[in-house]
């Protein structure tokens, strides 16, 4: 059961119940839709990017606690950062949540700040896609793709 507590950490539950930046965006200049056909999780990420800086970020949609908290915390942490930082953080985040699966030490944990809360996902291979859906969607939006599916 302690693995469950690691997965559903307080901060994750809190964000899933009260997601931040959970709204549409009129003046978004980038946006993408992410979909996990396996469980029906479905989000749209909106971005207002100017000179490589994420001026605003928000999301809408529905899904499980892990995917929603991930989107919420991602939006919080990326706001006012650069797109390059965002991509770099995605890389580290991905490594942290897939750590156990790939057999590698999740050395990225520690430089993730609040996102460290998601390290517990690594013990639940079926939930990795939930944690990374928002990030994959962000990545697609930054690349200019409009729809991304995690399958």
């Amino acid at each position, binding site marked *: *059961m302690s*693995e*469950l507590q690691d*997965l*559903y950490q307080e901060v994750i*539950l809190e964000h899933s*119940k009260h997601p931040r930046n959970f709204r549409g965006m009129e003046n978004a200049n980038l946006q993408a839709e992410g979909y996990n056909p*396996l*469980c*029906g*999780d*479905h989000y749209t990420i909106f971005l207002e990017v100017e000179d490589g800086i994420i001026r605003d970020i928000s999301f809408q949609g*529905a*899904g*499980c*606690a*892990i995917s929603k908290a991930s989107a919420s915390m991602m939006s919080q942490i990326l706001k006012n950062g650069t797109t390059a930082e965002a991509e770099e953080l995605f890389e580290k985040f991905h490594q942290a949540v897939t750590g156990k699966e790939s057999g590698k030490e999740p050395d990225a944990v520690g430089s993730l700040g609040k996102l460290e809360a998601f390290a517990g996902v690594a013990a*639940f291979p*079926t*939930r990795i896609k*939930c944690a990374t859906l928002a990030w994959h969607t962000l990545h697609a939006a930054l690349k200019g793709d409009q729809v991304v599916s995690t399958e």
Partner: protein
Amino acid sequence: MSTTLTAFRTSTSSGFDIERVRADFPILEQRVHDLPLVYLDNAATTQKPRAVIDAISNYYLSYNANIHRGVHQLSQSATDAYEAARKSVQTFLNAEDAKEIIFVRGATEAINLVAQSYGRQHVNSGDEIIVTAMEHHSNIVPWQMLCEEKGAHLRVAPINDAGELLLDEFEAMLNAKTKLVAVVHTSNVLGTVNPVRRIVEMAHTKGIPVLLDGAQAVPHGGVDVRALDCDFYAFSGHKIYGPTGIGILYGKRALLEAMPPYQGGGDMIRSVTFEKTIYNQLPYKFEAGTPDIAGVVGLGAAIEYVNGIGLSDIVAHEEDLLAYGTEALGAIPGLTLIGTAKEKVSVLSFVLEGIHPHDIGTILDRQGIAIRTGHHCAQPLMQRFGIPATARASLAVYNTAQEIDALVAGIHKVKEVFA
């Protein structure tokens, strides 16, 4: 609730003994996350009794050979076992003739066979095919593909909030352009048992043939294809304690005789020259290539296993469990059952207020409880209920009231995590 428990047919006069049944399924002894396995994902696939596992391994251990073509002893034994299984299925479905039983990979392939063979022959531009709002994707997509190819239309008969087909509206949709009705006998998401006898009658009045998707009906109620008078019936072996990769298409002989083959190859021909090929007779016309012989043998053993317990005892046991589970789950605050049809079997689909099914599934899994979460290959049905997914516990002959209790305790634990 304990009074309900005592009313359980744990051991009946007819000899149904749940402990003995459980002992037939070796996998049930397993522990998951260090807890006893509570397997409640039977609508996805059922576990296999030792009799089935042994039949398959015995085939490979003692008479593995190709069928219908060897003069040698092993080939004869394999052919005999293969055809004996066909007989078992015929009797089980009460089909008139063993030739009406076609071995396929599963319900999905059975439906695709009818769509590609019967459908392409009979459905033309502007024609209509009718399904219901509660179909599995495997009884939607093959028809969509056909409709797309032919310029025909797929029409969807509506259901009510309990998950019951609106029979009058269905009947009103039948018209001169309708070339086929394809309806799920029992819904894998809702547990609804459709009034298939009435559906067939209504369609036949207008001269329209009916295919029934019986993937979930056969294990939990049995079927009499002659009493139903359906034209085609599809089901999968793995949902009735048999192996995966084997299933059945039943078709009325006259229809099957008139249909073109589905696939070409060995076994489905009588003679081949480069100028002309003469197709084999039924059922071989539809069984191209070396089939899943072990799968057929396993399915035959599964049906004999079910016959050995007695379908009526299985149904009675599952009915008790469903009633018990419906009451127990219904008493959980914030829980809504999806699918409350009057005629219902073996499925408890639910949603919990404020908690996504995927999270429910993970937390239950850590308690050793296997359920399915998601759209259950029925996305249009999810849209009908305005939900992205459900959590689904589905029952089989070996489930117990104690397992329902474990599920209820598990759901309380889910609520605790999210409290």
